[in-house]
């Protein structure tokens, strides 16, 4: 049990992680629409409770693997806004020297093993990090984020089987946002609950409300503790929703879903829900919450200015970092 102060500190921490993700993503979306950020952005808005609730349990020595929708995971893991925006702009100061961009943003020092442009690319890598944690005799765990779409990729099934077989300290965190790109879940898989698939591999499958950060935090805590005890993997399915489109912002007035559905889910905005809980519990007033938003927005503006002014990579960078030992 945590005492009152620690409990309040945790609640504030979860709130701040979610606000940082929301602000980072909304600003990134604006910059993409203004044509300032090149390429494609897959934004995490609506799903903040999942990354925040899970990653709040982790240290830098615990790893995560991420997805094409990966900014939220890195923000939650403690990502630096300046290095993140610089990467999205393709600048040399970015996390990956501007060579990865949104879909490959990573910070290995934080244990963030990379966003991934390939749906289902992450699970095999996650079990490798977990294997390494066990091999090196540590108590560290690896959290593997993936979506409902990736749960149809063979890589997920191979990794799930191997993780359970080897009792690896990995948590498969399925962010079921109801859509594989623009295809609704009931049109891409016959199961409704992806957690059901856990039984096929001999691991627990847990379903949690992915809009409720405390519920995610609690369920993830049990799965992570189990993994740290050496009892093997868990499949944690978080039912969530993507407020924006698969790529970019829009999200409403689209052919693949009704606006009414989006509005229904937006009534359960994970940050709004949590702020009303915090106010009711007397942990954080509306004014105090607003102050957090203001502070984070200022952090984002500072980082965007930094990124806009930062130089592009020099031409020589094109051929650097292909190999560790130059050929």
């Amino acid at each position, binding site marked *: 049990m945590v005492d009152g102060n620690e409990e309040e500190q945790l609640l504030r921490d979860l709130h701040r992680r979610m606000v940082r993700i929301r602000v980072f993503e909304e600003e990134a979306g604006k910059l993409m629409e203004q044509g300032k950020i090149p390429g494609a952005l897959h934004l995490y808005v609506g799903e903040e409770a999942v990354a925040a609730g899970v990653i709040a349990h982790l240290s830098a020595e615990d790893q995560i693997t991420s997805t094409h929708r990966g900014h939220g995971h890195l923000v939650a893991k403690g990502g630096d806004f300046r290095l993140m925006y610089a990467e999205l702009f393709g600048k040399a100061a970015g996390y990956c020297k501007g060579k990865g961009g949104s879909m490959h943003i990573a*910070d290995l020092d934080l244990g963030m093993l990379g966003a991934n442009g390939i749906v289902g690319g992450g699970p095999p*890598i996650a079990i*490798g990090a977990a294997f390494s944690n066990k091999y*090196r005799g540590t108590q560290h765990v690896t959290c593997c984020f993936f979506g409902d779409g990736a749960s149809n990729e063979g890589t997920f099934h*191979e*990794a799930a089987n191997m993780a359970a077989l080897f009792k690896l300290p990995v948590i498969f965190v399925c962010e079921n946002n109801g859509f594989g790109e623009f295809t609704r879940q009931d049109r891409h898989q016959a199961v409704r609950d992806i957690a059901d698939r856990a039984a096929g591999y001999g691991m627990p499958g847990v379903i949690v409300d992915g809009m409720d950060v405390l519920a995610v935090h609690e369920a993830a805590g049990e799965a992570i503790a189990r993994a740290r005890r050496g009892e093997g993997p868990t499949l944690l399915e978080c039912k969530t929703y993507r407020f924006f489109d698969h790529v970019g912002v829009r999200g409403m007035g689209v052919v693949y879903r009704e606006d009414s559905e989006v509005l229904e889910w937006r009534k359960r905005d994970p940050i709004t829900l949590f702020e009303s809980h915090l106010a009711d519990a007397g942990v954080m007033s509306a004014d105090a919450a607003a102050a957090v938003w203001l502070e984070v927005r200022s952090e984002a503006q500072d980082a965007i200015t930094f990124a806009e002014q930062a130089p592009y990579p020099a031409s020589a960078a094109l051929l650097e970092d292909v190999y560790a030992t130059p050929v």
Partner: protein
Amino acid sequence: MTTTAQRTRTTSYVNAILEAQRQLLTADPNVFLCGEDVALYGGVFGTSRGLMAEFGPQRVVDTPISESGIVGMAIGAAATGLRPVVEIMFMDFVGVCMDQIVNQLAKMRYMFGGKATLPVTIRTMAGGGRNMAAQHSQSLEAWFCHVPGLKVVMPSNPYDAKGLLVAAVRDDDPVLVIDNKMQLGMQGEVPEDLYEVPLGKARVVREGTNFTIVATSRMVQEALAAAEQLGADGLNVEVVDPRTLQPLDIETIATSVRKTHRALVAHEAVRFGGIGGEIVAQIQEEAFDYLDAPVGRVGAPFSPVPFSPALEALYVPNRDTIVTEVRRILGKQV
């Protein structure tokens, strides 16, 4: 090279691989082996026989038949400090783990701005000749030479098999080590201690004066036999084994061609789109003014590998195919 004389003895290609793996496991606690049937069974080709008993199931790991899982496990382990050696039993099986090799393993360092180091070695077995048919006999090295971020090694004898594998495992980049299953019983002199054959360095296997055959893997032996036959034509053939195809030691190859003025590249893979085309292109870039004849290529015909022994014998290039092509280049009727 060490300055003290190394103890060597004659042993087989398969024992050279086994010995390299045993010594690498002994020397570096971060090295582990994994793959299908590599542990209890000792590898279907015997390349890890006895190693699980010696090093334990934590370091010599049997996996399910899940090639993407195997390669991914190596990537995640390498990104967090280990030095995995994984076996993909037959090279043909890379078809079910190409994403992990090509999109994850090869690119991660570059995509992450140089911050990921992935010392992964993938060992696999290529080549026809054992009537294993179309899905257990291919030589697919060209696929991987085309992907920046990977290194590709094809040994042609027991000495190189051990030394190149040691160099591959100690290298901080991902390396595919492609052995040829017909060479596993080949005998040769192999030092007992650990040693490296450096990556990216070709070897002049046979010195000659007026024709160069660049041959890879098993085709080196075939090229040497062809060279003997061609002596009757008044040719003094030089045979160059690139040993590493990516990075390619074009300088050693071009130096040979500048001396001999005529060349041919021989590999077992399908000729069309094979690495031979790349080597030929680089020869004409580096040594065009020295060439007295078009540079030839020997490779398999454009079909899947057939099962029937009668057809497979026609399919896999050999000394006769090489001799015929050399004579054709020189305008001689066979």
